């Protein structure tokens, strides 16, 4: 456990690199979107109600998707944590096992903290009528549209998933270089393709469709958590073979 803590400290020796960069990029994306929304307000249409004609904002046009940048950054940090920082950690006498555990623990802790921050920002967004510009930056239809605790949970799980996926990718790249990373990607595509063929051959598209339409955000979160656990195990099995 002590080593885990030291590994986390090792990653945070220059703290802003991991803690702030995702938020800096998110902030840039947020500001750009906010400027655009202020300049070009969301389209409206008029609806005839008992009070006469009422202006209603066009739904589905005020979502930015800008919050995706922080998820992408988590993937990138996951890859660099292995690619750049593993060799020196091994030089410092850390075992691959503790390095992986400590790094993953740090990633999960960051995901939980940043997930909470995303939930808080979403709450602010709701209470300020979309930052005064009817902008839905931290709200994503269906996925991040529930109560704050569900947003916290779903964001944290998704961030952790991408972090762990990035780590696995980084390990494969570290050990087998570009060819390995390409093969790894190809293998994942093959798994997807196999699943598609399986569904198609079983003529099961309608049940798959029902499964997804019936899936709640909480159910989706559970699914993502399961995937994250699988990826975590995959990375663990791979790092044992990593050399530097």
């Amino acid at each position, binding site marked *: 456990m002590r080593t885990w803590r030291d590994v986390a400290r090792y990653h945070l*020796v*220059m703290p802003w690199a991991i803690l702030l960069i995702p938020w800096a990029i998110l902030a840039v994306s947020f500001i750009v979107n906010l400027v655009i929304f202020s300049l070009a307000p969301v389209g409206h249409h008029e609806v005839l109600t008992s009070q006469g004609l009422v202006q209603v904002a066009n739904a589905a046009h005020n979502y930015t998707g800008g919050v995706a940048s922080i998820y992408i950054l988590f993937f990138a940090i996951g890859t660099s944590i292995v690619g750049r920082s593993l060799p*020196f950690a091994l030089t410092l006498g850390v075992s691959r096992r503790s390095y992986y555990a400590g790094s993953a623990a740090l990633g999960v802790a960051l995901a939980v903290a940043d997930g909470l921050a995303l939930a808080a920002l979403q709450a602010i967004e709701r209470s300020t009528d979309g930052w005064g510009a009817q902008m839905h930056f931290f709200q994503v239809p269906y996925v991040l549209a529930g109560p704050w605790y569900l947003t916290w949970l779903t964001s944290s799980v998704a961030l952790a998933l991408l972090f762990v996926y990035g780590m696995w990718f980084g390990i494969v790249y570290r050990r087998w270089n570009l060819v390995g990373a390409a093969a790894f990607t190809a293998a994942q595509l093959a798994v997807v393709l196999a699943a598609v063929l399986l569904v198609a051959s079983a003529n099961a598209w309608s049940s798959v469709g029902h499964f997804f339409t019936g899936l709640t955000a909480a159910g989706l979160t559970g699914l993502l958590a399961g995937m994250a656990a699988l990826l975590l195990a995959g990375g663990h099995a791979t790092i044992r073979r990593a050399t530097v």
Partner: protein
Amino acid sequence: MTPPISVTGLTRRYRDHLALDQVSLEVEAGSIVGLLGRNGAGKTTLLRILAGQEFPSAGSVLVHGEPPVENEAVLRRMVFVREDQIYPDVRVRHVLRAASWFYPHWSAELADALLADFDLPPNRAVKKLSRGMRSALGIVIGLAARAEVTMFDEPYAGLDAVARQIFYDRLLADYAEHPRTILLSTHLIDEAAGLLERVVVIDRGRIVLTADADDLRGVATAVSGPVLAVDEFTAGHAVWGRRRLAGQASVVVVGPLDQADQLRASSLHLDLAPLSLQQLVVQAAGQPADTLERTSA
């Protein structure tokens, strides 16, 4: 007592070549051992396997009596900074701070003193250091860690003569105060010769010579003079490489020469010149292993 390093039948095979071939080696506690050999001889691979960074294909590697791979109890008692060490994207002082967390005997004072000796700017990003400065950083970590097994892989690539002298002086001074086992791979053999207590020569993945550095002084002698006289003198001696030019010949005689040999040489008007460590390694790296085993016995 368990030797700090014990290697038996170590083989490392890569797809198309044999990096290490049946290497066996034992290093005693509290000595400075030079690991010498040509580029690609297998020095770095051996050190990486000892440090648990690479895996053996066959054979056994014990550090402090235990396999080093994934064994933190052993790994924390050794330090190995590679020649081409990859560092995270941080500054020099961050690297040293991180190192201080992991090595139980880390000396911050020594690290600071070495930083000053090598003129290393603590606030500079590691990726902006020059080749020589990166080597110096590796030396600072290797020495300040005060690990029981300290391994340097070609530690002074890109270092100027002054900095190399600082390294030798600091290494010896700290070694005297805090004895440990030091394994040093190098190309600059004669320069480091005064430092080394034992010498291991590795060539094409095989250990071709293991000896005390003192025993090697005078173990081979270049004999030169007229061809006939040289031939007469060397009859019955093991020899390496024979060179002829006009009526003159030069032959390396293996094995110590006794007083009678010396007298005979002078009566034949032959020149005798003991081979330096570097010349010896050059010779050793070109020989089939069995001729050398005879000499080290």
